[in-house]
């Protein structure tokens, strides 16, 4: 693993909005098949970093590589098709489409097998019975699960989850965490943005800490919890 190119490598990424530098030289490297966490106080640039990786925002400087290939500067849909799937902090299902259609719309290749796979995935996240309901009529938690199924439908190499635990009750949270652990069992690579430390500690093997748009620490969750710079960033000096 060590000599191969990382699955995702972000180097010196900078993103400014007017006079505000939201991401200021952040760097990450993710190896395939593991679950990573990205944490940091509110406003530390986590979501902006996600948006730059997925091409929704144009970065101002720095590089993003997927398995060695530069992907910064590509259109968002190209990056997605290269294997970077994501969910959103605020739910973004397609409300007028049914659960099944939400999945079909983002599938490519043979349609019959896509339908089959869509059915499987909806079953996997426990939405089998609601396959033909409009996504907008599902509950908040069901929509979160649908988003997860939808990103899996893309068969991504890397899955970016933006605050999966936000606004979710404990039962659903456990379902979601199980699903994320299931992803690792299936050999997928996950980068999870979260500011709920408990969630990060529960599933992540390696954590990056972002503060003022910079990567200030990284390491296994236990070490990160004791890291002074991290504590300082979260609680102040």
């Amino acid at each position, binding site marked *: 693993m060590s000599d191969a190119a990382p699955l995702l490598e972000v180097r010196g990424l900078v993103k400014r909005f007017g006079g505000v530098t939201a991401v200021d030289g952040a760097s990450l490297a993710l190896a395939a098949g593991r679950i990573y966490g990205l944490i940091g106080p509110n406003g530390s640039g986590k979501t902006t970093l996600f948006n730059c990786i997925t091409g929704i925002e144009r970065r101002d400087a720095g590089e993003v590589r997927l398995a060695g290939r530069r992907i910064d500067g590509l259109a968002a849909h*190209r990056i997605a098709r290269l294997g970077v799937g994501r969910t*959103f902090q605020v739910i*973004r299902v397609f409300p*007028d489409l049914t659960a099944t259609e939400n999945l079909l719309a*983002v599938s490519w290749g043979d349609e019959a097998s896509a339908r089959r796979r869509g059915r499987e995935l909806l079953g996997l996240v426990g939405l089998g019975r609601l396959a033909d309901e409009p996504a907008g009529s599902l509950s908040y938690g069901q929509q979160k699960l649908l988003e997860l199924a939808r990103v899996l439908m893309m068969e991504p190499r890397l899955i970016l989850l933006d605050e999966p635990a936000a606004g979710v009750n404990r039962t659903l949270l456990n379902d979601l965490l199980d699903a994320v652990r299931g992803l690792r069992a299936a050999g997928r690579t996950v980068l999870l943005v979260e500011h709920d430390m408990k969630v990060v500690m529960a599933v992540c093997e390696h954590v990056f800490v972002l503060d003022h748009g910079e990567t200030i620490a990284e390491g296994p969750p236990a070490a990160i919890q004791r890291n002074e710079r991290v504590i300082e960033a979260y609680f102040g000096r």
Partner: protein
Amino acid sequence: MRRAALALLALVLLGLALYPRVASGYGIRFMLQCFMWIALAQSWNLVSGLTGYVSFGHVAFFGTGAYTAGVLIARHGWPWALACLAGGVGAAGLALLIGYPCLRLRGPYFAIAMLGLNEVMRVCVSYFEGVTGGGLGLSLPTLQASLAIYYAMGLTGALVTLAAHLVVTSRFGLRLMTIREDETAAEALGIPTARYKLAAFLLSAAGPGVVGGLFARDQGYIEPISVFPLATTITMIVMALFGGKGTVWGPVVGAVALFGLEELVWARFLFLHQLLFGAIIVGVVLFVPQGLVGLLRDRFRLPRYV
């Protein structure tokens, strides 16, 4: 259920094909215009109903088709059927030219850009007198072909509706709908939204282009104000909304219902008809934003091909 619907559809089409044998001249003219509105409302639906990009200047494609066909017939002696097809190609060409920059504009900006396009086209046509006849209009050689035009218009309406059916029931159509639902999410999930919007826009421009050509041949005389009226865009939008935007049969139902109603009321109360049309717009937007067919589909969970 599906078989019964198909049988009914076949019966209606057969009836329409045989109708000229028994119809009066007025009856044929009435149906001809009905077909025209079906094709126009359905074409608007293909782009605006599915992607949510509201085109407020769709009549520009109608007018472009009318003038393309008109000039080819009057000045170059093309057979009218071929000239009308060229009208469709011309309109699609304009859509390609305009869609590339304009489809980057979101929401109201796109709607206004399209409104502007129609004005620009009308002015251009008025200005280039040498080709178009300018404000004096363009007269086409006389030809008695209303029966053939009846069939051609009917075929165009049917083909545009068939296209809507094929699009709406395909993944291509689902992807167009994701643009309406959440364009940023669609893009982030791998859907090349710019290309899809442009494809839908081209598809939606071709029908009105052909219809414009048929209109020109049917009328025998066109002028800028007769083929670029904003009112035509408004009417096709209202028809699509009334029947149900984003559905296959909504624009058809809307076109038939509103055109029929208009003919009925208009003949008797010239003033009331304006009022009625306005009331329908307000009523639909307020009470059935999803339209008649949309309402039925939501209520009874009908499949997309409805």
